[in-house]
């Protein structure tokens, strides 16, 4: 069967009343977590995972991924109306979105954002549809050394391509790897790094860590700033919506370029945040009237939003095909897959086509559902932000702790959430990236197992990672991603002493 037939089967699975309802619920919940400070996509999904144990995996992933799209849309709403990015990836949207809304064109700004977000997402899904079969066939040739090489590539890409300092990314990664190795070692069966604490025997759940790092951490950052919401009018005028949609084709070049940037950054572990900033920067450079950016230029909204969403959707492809997520949220979802008893990777396409293609088909539908729902509910969610922080803050805290408790019904996890909340706040403040930590926690076991198996195969020689063309080319790409970007930066800095971010 070709990809198209498989996709049609997928639509058959996705378009059922139950799944459509899950999409609507997921998008709405995603909007809530996207709008509220302290609840973002990664920890929103973490909070929801324990509730999905009773669903079958296909329904569960549809719910979780819909929540992710909803969170991406919700993040843009607050960026434009309140100048508060609900998600890190919608920071770039505030630059032109808020000024445009301030000048009385909030409907236009929101419509531009949501429509280009929807288009970006659809571009991403189309790429996934086209590449899915190929990627999984490619990955079927993988053995243990190749898998380790791919994990190495993912880690290397974070260090080399991330916007943070490489040493800080390294700290984040290694802390994640160490946290993942606490508890029972699956290869040797030994208990590791528990230091006599019986609470650590079962290991540290990445869900608890994510809830602490992203939930409490982000909330602390909000508290530090002392919350003052100053929103602009949030009525949606239907005539403005259609007028803006008619205006969209004018920005086809920006849309296409931003979509491609997003697709690239989504498949490689650049992530939506980096994609939206990069796309905004390039749009500003490409524009002839460069000075007007930051004052409410439509391209300044179209560019980051398209890239953000195409990167967000494309992050699902490496997660499904290789088992290597390229964003924090995708990493959490992959952890969910493993909890449901599915192994992400090429075999998933062979053994569970319903799951994979149901998910891909649902991505088309739920993004369209998302655009419609978000336009319809803007006033509602804008009103939610007017609830005083003294009430909504403790509620978010309570939801985070309740969510952490439901992961393993362990009271020790509550302390962990508190601890990782402080860590998350500090790391954020000091520009340590958090996504590598989550990725390392989810991939830690798999990377170690792959390494262990490779070492057994080769009798302890690292030469196995360069033993055949496939594995050596992955390793070389990994090494190149590790070294080349920083070398280029260094070169640029030497040539032009005053570097601009």
């Amino acid at each position: 069967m070709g990809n198209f037939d498989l996709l049609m089967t997928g639509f058959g699975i996705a378009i059922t009343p139950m799944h459509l309802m899950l999409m609507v619920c997921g998008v709405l919940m995603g909007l809530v977590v996207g709008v509220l400070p302290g609840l973002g996509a990664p920890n929103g999904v973490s909070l929801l995972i324990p509730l999905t144990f009773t669903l079958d995996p296909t329904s569960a992933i549809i719910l979780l991924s819909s929540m992710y799209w909803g969170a991406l849309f919700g993040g843009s709403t607050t960026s434009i109306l309140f100048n508060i990015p609900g998600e890190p990836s919608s920071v770039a949207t505030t630059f032109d979105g808020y000024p445009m809304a301030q000048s009385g064109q909030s409907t236009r700004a929101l419509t531009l954002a949501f429509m280009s977000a929807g288009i970006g997402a659809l571009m991403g899904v189309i790429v996934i549809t086209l590449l899915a079969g190929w990627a999984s066939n490619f990955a079927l040739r993988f053995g243990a050394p190749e898998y380790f090489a791919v994990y190495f590539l993912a880690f290397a890409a974070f260090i080399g391509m991330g916007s943070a300092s490489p040493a800080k990314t390294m700290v984040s990664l290694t802390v994640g790897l160490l946290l993942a190795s606490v508890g029972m070692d699956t290869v040797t069966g030994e208990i590791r790094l528990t230091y006599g604490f019986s609470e650590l025997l079962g290991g540290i759940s990445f869900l608890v860590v994510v809830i602490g790092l992203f939930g409490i951490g982000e909330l602390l950052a909000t508290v530090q700033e002392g919350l003052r919401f100053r929103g602009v009018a949030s009525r949606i005028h239907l005539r403005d919506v259609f007028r803006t949609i008619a205006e969209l084709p004018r920005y086809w070049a920006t849309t296409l370029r931003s979509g491609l940037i997003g697709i690239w950054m989504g498949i490689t572990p650049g992530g939506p945040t980096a994609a939206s900033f990069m796309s905004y920067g390039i749009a500003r450079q490409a524009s002839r009237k460069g000075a007007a950016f930051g004052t409410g230029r439509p391209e300044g909204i179209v560019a980051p939003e398209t890239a953000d969403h195409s990167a967000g959707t494309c992050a699902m492809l490496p997660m499904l095909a290789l088992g290597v997520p390229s964003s924090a949220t995708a990493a959490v979802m992959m952890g969910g897959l493993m909890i449901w008893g599915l192994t992400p990777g090429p075999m998933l396409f062979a053994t569970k086509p319903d799951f994979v293609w149901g998910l891909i088909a649902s991505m088309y539908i739920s993004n369209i559902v998302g655009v419609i729902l978000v336009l319809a509910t803007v006033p509602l969610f804008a009103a939610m932000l007017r609830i005083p922080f003294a009430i909504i803050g403790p509620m978010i805290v309570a939801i985070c702790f309740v969510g952490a408790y439901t992961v393993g019904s362990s009271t020790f996890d509550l302390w962990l959430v508190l601890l990782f909340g402080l860590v998350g706040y500090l790391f954020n403040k000091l520009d340590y990236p958090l996504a590598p930590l989550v990725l390392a926690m989810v991939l830690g076991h798999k990377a170690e197992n792959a390494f262990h198996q490779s070492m057994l195969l080769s009798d302890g020689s690292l030469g196995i990672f360069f033993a055949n063309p496939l594995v050596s080319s992955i390793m070389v790409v990994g090494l190149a991603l590790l070294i080349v970007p920083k070398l280029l930066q260094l070169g640029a800095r030497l040539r032009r002493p005053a570097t601009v971010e």
Partner: protein
Amino acid sequence: MTVRRFHAEAATAAATGILGLIAIYGAAELGFGWEDHGPQAGYFPFYVGLLLIGASLWNLIRAFVAYRAATAEEEPFLPREQLMRICKFSAALLIFVAATLMLGIYVGTAGYITWSAWRQGGYRLPVSLGIGLGFSVALYLIFETLFRIPLLKGPIEPLLGIY
């Protein structure tokens, strides 16, 4: 009292470095060498710990370099006002967790929200109490009734006939 960026950077680098040392110590106890059938259990954590220490040292050195290069009028990393807000909020979190462990999630949550709405939000006590209790009831309905996931309960719930 304000926190300067250098202090925060150096303290974080030191903390991550110590974490690396702890990991190496734990890995060394397990053995990080090579056996007949492959690497020992501590092999992976040992080298990851080494990398962590290396990266932490690098961050420490960078923090020092930035500190030496910094001019006198550096913008404070955490001004006094912000530091106080963080400390207050963290203290509230700490009390909330301690109370939750003793009294259960429902009572802890209701108490925390009530206190915050009353003392910080400026609502009257009955209104605040209503918000707090309402939220706890909503939690109960969603988790215990809808999803059948039991949450942590303290000594008070059994008195009301809830198990």
